[in-house]
């Protein structure tokens, strides 16, 4: 605690200081042994899912993104992710309306190799943190509603509309007994958490692939095992139902943001 200015805390702070000094004084001779110490508190090798943490500095970098510079940079992205942020290929994610935080984090994770992708890792290596923030600002501004005057492939038709029942149940209520919170409590529109992308306009095949990767351990860049622990509880049918439901643009909040 850095609020040293408060008078009421002073005596307790002194007590704690005294306690810590004692602890360190007792611990010093133990630390001198060296060889015995590592065996005593053996810890598993540290696994770090992502180098990104939502600290004030990180949030400041992301929020300083310049959408106009992002617009210029995005010309390189539009071959795969579409002129307006909707990908022509189902396994490539739609970027339109993606929130800044999740876009920026994925770019950093591609750069550091925490998330693997043959295509994106090399592309992300060419982007600075600043570039990624600019792109994030640009794509966050793109509308997710498709233009009704144009005949584009979005929203995709649902393969099997009967799966919608199961999907809606999971999106709205989740399944507490299996530790699956409702999708909409983090991915919108009910509420969002830091780093969780809105899903209402995402590609179905992309979502299906990512759910598989989270559950089989080939994608591990979610902070504090959040998405992995949820995805491993989903059955194959539920994954299909969810990805088709979101992919059809029927997700709650679709075409309304």
């Amino acid at each position, binding site marked *: 605690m850095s609020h040293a200015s408060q008078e009421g*805390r002073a005596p307790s702070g002194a007590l704690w200081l005294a306690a810590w000094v004692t602890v360190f004084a007792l611990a010093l001779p133990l630390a001198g042994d060296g060889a015995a110490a590592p065996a005593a508190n053996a810890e*598993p090798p540290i696994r*770090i899912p992502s180098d990104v943490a939502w600290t004030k500095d990180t949030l400041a970098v992301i929020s300083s993104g310049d959408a106009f510079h992002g617009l210029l940079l995005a010309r390189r992205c539009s071959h795969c992710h579409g002129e307006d942020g909707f990908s022509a290929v189902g396994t490539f994610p739609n970027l339109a309306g993606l929130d800044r935080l999740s876009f920026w984090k994925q770019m950093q994770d591609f750069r550091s190799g925490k998330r693997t992708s043959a295509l994106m890792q090399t592309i992300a290596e060419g982007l600075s943190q600043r570039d990624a923030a600019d792109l994030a600002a640009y794509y966050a501004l793109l509308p997710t509603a498709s233009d009704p005057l144009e005949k584009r492939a979005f929203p995709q038709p649902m393969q099997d509309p009967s799966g919608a029942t199961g999907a809606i149940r999971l999106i709205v209520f989740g399944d507490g007994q299996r530790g699956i919170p409702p999708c909409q409590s983090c991915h919108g529109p009910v509420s969002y958490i830091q780093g969780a992308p809105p899903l209402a306009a995402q590609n179905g095949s992309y979502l299906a692939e990512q759910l598989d990767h989270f559950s089989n351990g080939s994608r591990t860049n979610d902070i504090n095992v959040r998405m992995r622990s949820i995805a491993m509880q989903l059955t194959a049918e539920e994954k299909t139902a969810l990805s088709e439901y979101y992919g059809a643009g029927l997700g709650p909040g679709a075409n309304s943001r």
Partner: protein
Amino acid sequence: MFAAAMALVGIALFGTRFYMVDVPIWHFFGGGQGLDPATLHLRGEFVESNLGAAEDPGGALTVRMIAQQFVFVPQCIVVPADVPVKFRVTSADAVHMLSFLGTGYGLKAVPGEVNEATFTFNKAGEFNIPCHEFCGAGHYAMRGHLHVVPRDQFGSLLPGERRTCEPR
């Protein structure tokens, strides 16, 4: 009369709080650990590879858990019966509370703090750990699991081994 009423209120408060471990009182006097909830996954004892049940060289068990919107990590913890188990719990975002249903124990998870308590579970079985402190839109579906197994079934853990009962 007033003193008696106050004593009753005190007993009631003490009674409801007896098994529920809240933030240590010295937290309010500046003795907090100053843990950063945003960087739990980067350093310290709550990195993901260190979560779950761990055994000290002395044989004592420590379970480390993170509570976050809206899942507990690990979701399923396994401990032996009739053995004191130390829980070390923190939160990555809001205040949560682990309520070990059917055992009478509860433990708050507070961002920036490590909350520690030692519980002894007397009966084997499977217990739910719902979140008992409103933490956001998905609060009602936030649930963990506790498996208490007989002591001889649990065996012992290797140094560096972390045990959970997640279906991996």
